[in-house]
Every structure is written in structure tokens, then in C-alpha cells.
């Protein structure tokens, strides 16, 4: 058990170090989020009411689009450095690599989401502080769902020619339930209503996350094989 955790951790450690040093994807994604912010504003027009009504959807649209950028390239560092086969040959349970990559993705996505939230708060005038805890709960549950499937599909598409197109086409339809649940729950939270009102959605998210994680853990060795 400890050995497994160590192996997963070292994958997380490596990806985190590389990401911090190359800074490439994190910066780009944050910038992308900023652009999205403006695009949403322009697309919806100056009517503040309309914007606020659409806010939960816009927020998660932003998260998903940013996630697409990051998650699609999750295994590219392996491909670019010619390390795919080195990882394949590494002994031990392959699912530890899945856990490590998933953890790295979660950390990165959460960072990006925090930035997006802060920007949303500033530009669209939302009082985030008041709803921070319940909002965080929704965001974490939703992000786990997206990352669990995204990491799995990222491994599958890393070496496929039409990766940039195939990855979103595979991921987005799968994520519709997560999107519906998180947007609905976010609506409840942003309106200041108690989190208990969104209990059904949160339960759905928790169930979905568990299912996706379980399948990811069980099937990663089949995806990550020669």
C-alpha cells in the first residue's frame, strides 16, 4: 500500500516539477481563461441580469474548456521525451501511474479554476467570499469527475494522430452529466441558498466520481500497455 502510494507520489512529483519549470501550460491556460472571460461578456452583452443568470453555466464552461487544454496533453510530456516505453516497462501496478497523473491534473486544474473564479469575481462582480465553502465543495466534486475520465482518455489519445480532435469528442459527451450536476449545484450556491438544496446533485456527482475513478483504476493497465 505504502509502496503504491510512493510510486503514485513520484509521478505527481515529477509532473509537478516539470510543470513548474516549463510553466508553459499553466500560463497559457490562465491567459486563455482571461480571454474567455471577455468573450463571454461580449457574447452576452451589457445586460447585467442576463450575465448573472448565465453565470453558473459560464463558469463551468470556462472550467471545461480550460480542462480540455490541460487534460489533452497530460501524457504529452512522456511522448515528447520518448519516455512512453520507459513507463510501460516500469514494474508494478500501472494504476499507480494513473493515480499520480490524476493527482497532478487535479492540482493543476484546481489552480486554474481558482484563478478563473477570482477573475469572475472581479469582472462580474460576484461576492465569492460569502459562498466560498459550498462552492469549493461543488468545484472539487466536479473537477474530480472531469479529471478522472480526462486522465484515462488522455493516455489513450496521446499517441493517436488526430489527438486534438479526438480527445474533446470523446471526453465532452461523457462529461454531460457532470456538467449538468455542477451547473445546477453552482446555481444553488451562487444564489446564496443552502447547500442542502443541491444534495441530490452532489450525490449524483459523488456517485459519478466513484464510478469513473473505479473504472479508471481498473482499466488503466489495459490502456497503458504495449
Amino acid at each position, binding site marked *: 500500500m505504502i509502496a503504491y502510494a*510512493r*510510486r503514485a507520489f513520484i509521478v505527481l512529483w*515529477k509532473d509537478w516539477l*516539470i510543470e513548474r519549470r516549463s510553466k508553459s501550460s499553466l500560463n497559457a491556460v490562465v491567459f486563455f481563461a482571461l480571454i474567455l472571460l471577455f468573450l463571454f461578456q461580449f457574447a452576452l452583452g451589457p445586460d447585467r441580469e442576463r450575465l448573472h443568470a448565465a453565470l453558473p453555466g459560464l463558469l463551468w464552461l470556462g472550467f471545461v474548456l480550460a480542462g480540455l487544454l490541460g487534460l489533452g496533453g497530460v501524457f504529452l*510530456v512522456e511522448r515528447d*521525451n*520518448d*519516455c512512453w516505453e520507459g513507463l510501460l*516497462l516500469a514494474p*508494478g501496478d500501472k494504476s499507480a501511474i494513473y493515480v499520480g497523473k490524476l493527482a497532478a491534473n487535479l492540482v493543476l486544474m484546481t489552480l486554474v479554476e481558482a484563478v478563473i473564479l477570482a477573475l469572475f469575481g472581479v469582472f462580474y462582480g460576484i461576492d465569492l467570499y460569502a459562498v466560498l465553502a459550498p462552492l469549493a465543495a461543488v468545484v472539487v466534486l466536479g473537477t474530480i469527475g472531469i479529471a478522472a475520465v480526462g486522465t484515462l482518455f488522455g493516455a489513450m489519445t496521446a499517441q493517436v494522430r488526430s489527438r486534438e480532435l479526438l480527445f474533446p469528442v470523446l471526453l465532452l459527451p461523457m462529461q454531460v452529466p457532470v456538467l449538468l450536476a455542477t451547473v445546477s449545484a453552482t446555481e444553488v450556491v451562487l444564489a446564496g441558498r443552502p447547500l442542502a438544496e443541491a444534495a441530490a446533485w452532489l450525490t449524483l456527482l459523488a456517485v459519478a466520481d466513484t464510478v469513473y475513478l473505479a473504472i479508471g483504476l481498473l482499466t488503466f493497465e489495459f490502456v497503458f500497455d504495449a
Partner: protein
Amino acid sequence: MIAATRLRKRFGAAVVLDDLSLSVGSGECVALLGPNGAGKTTLLRILATLTRPSSGSLAIGGIDALARPEAARPLIGMVGHGSCVYEDLTAIENLRFWTALSGQDASPIRLRGALQEVGLEGVAAERARTFSAGMKRRLALARVVLARPRLLLLDEPITGLDRQGRKWLEALVLGLRTGGTAVVFATHNLGSGLDLASRVAILSEGRLAMDRPAQELSGEDLRAMYDSVTEGAGG
């Protein structure tokens, strides 16, 4: 260590390996010679369980590598064409990653020792991006050697190594062989074939056209045999 029997590998209509059998014992070092495209890389990849043969059987360390590749993999170390070095990590960080991933002791002392063996201890804290191709090769070798594999597979190990690099390689291979590791390497450099190996085999048209102990051959003998075999094959 390796018992490969009647391996066949097809890619679509092209037959790359045809009824190839090979056995390698502990401590042996086999040089696989052959022109480009002869199938050396494919054979190495099959031995590494990275590719499955179309038919035939393969046992590594007594384990059926086709039925249970995960059981055989801990025994295998391979440095392929690509050196697999994370450019944004330093030399010692690279080693730490691979060692820890394999579940081994990743203490700094051990890692530095490995870097010393390949002459990279001076750049331990440098990012691999700054390394030459030869240095990356050596780092890859250090990584693999740390794992103390029972079977070491090398694809064109001489490429990018200068004379000093070759000396390190020889010392590494010798050290491993003394410990019982079997080594198989593919190269088109006939000279290195004789220097490093205890056995020399020529791969041509998907088969082993020749397989002889290295000490029986001189440089000219080998050259002559090589030419005659590959000429016939139009290679």
C-alpha cells in the same frame, strides 16, 4: 535467461521476423548485427515485451513473457533509440524518478554513485535539456543499470558516445555480466560488436543468419561474413 522460439512478426503484409529462435544465458553478451531495417529493433522490442510477436514463444528468466509480461518486466532493462530523459529535470532528479517508480531505494548516495559510473556526477544538478545526445545516453544507461536488470537490452548503444563514453559502456556491461545479467544489443557497427560481445549474430531477412562466439572471429572474418550474408539479401 532468454529462450525465444520460432518468433514471427508481421506488420500487415510485411514479414519482419521469420522463424527466429534465440537463446541467451546469464552473463552472455550477444551482439545483433544487421543493416537498417533488418528487424533488429523489432526483435529487441519483442524481447522487451513491448511488442507481441505474431507467433512463437518467449521465456525470460523462466517466465512465459507472452502470457505474463508484467511478471517478466521487472527483470528487463532497456535503452532504446530514444533516451527517455525528462529535459526539464536534472540528472539526479531523472534518476530519482525512475528509481522510485520501480520501487527501489532512491537515496541520493545511490543515485550519485550511478552518475559516477557513467561520468555524469559533475552535472548531477544540471537540467537534462543542456545535455548532449551522448550524455543523455549515458544518463539512460545509468537509469537502467540502477535497476540491476537480469536482462539488458540496448538498441544502438554506441551512437553518440565518444571514446570515453564507450569505455564507460564497456565497464558497465562487464560489471553487469559478472553479476549474471544477460546483455543483448543491436548495432550496425561491426567493430563494437566484437569488442563488447561474447557472441555475435547477424540478422538478415528476418532470421539469424549467423550466431557464433566472438572469440572465434577476427574483424576481417566478421566483415566478410556480414557482407556475404547481407549482399544475398539485397540489404
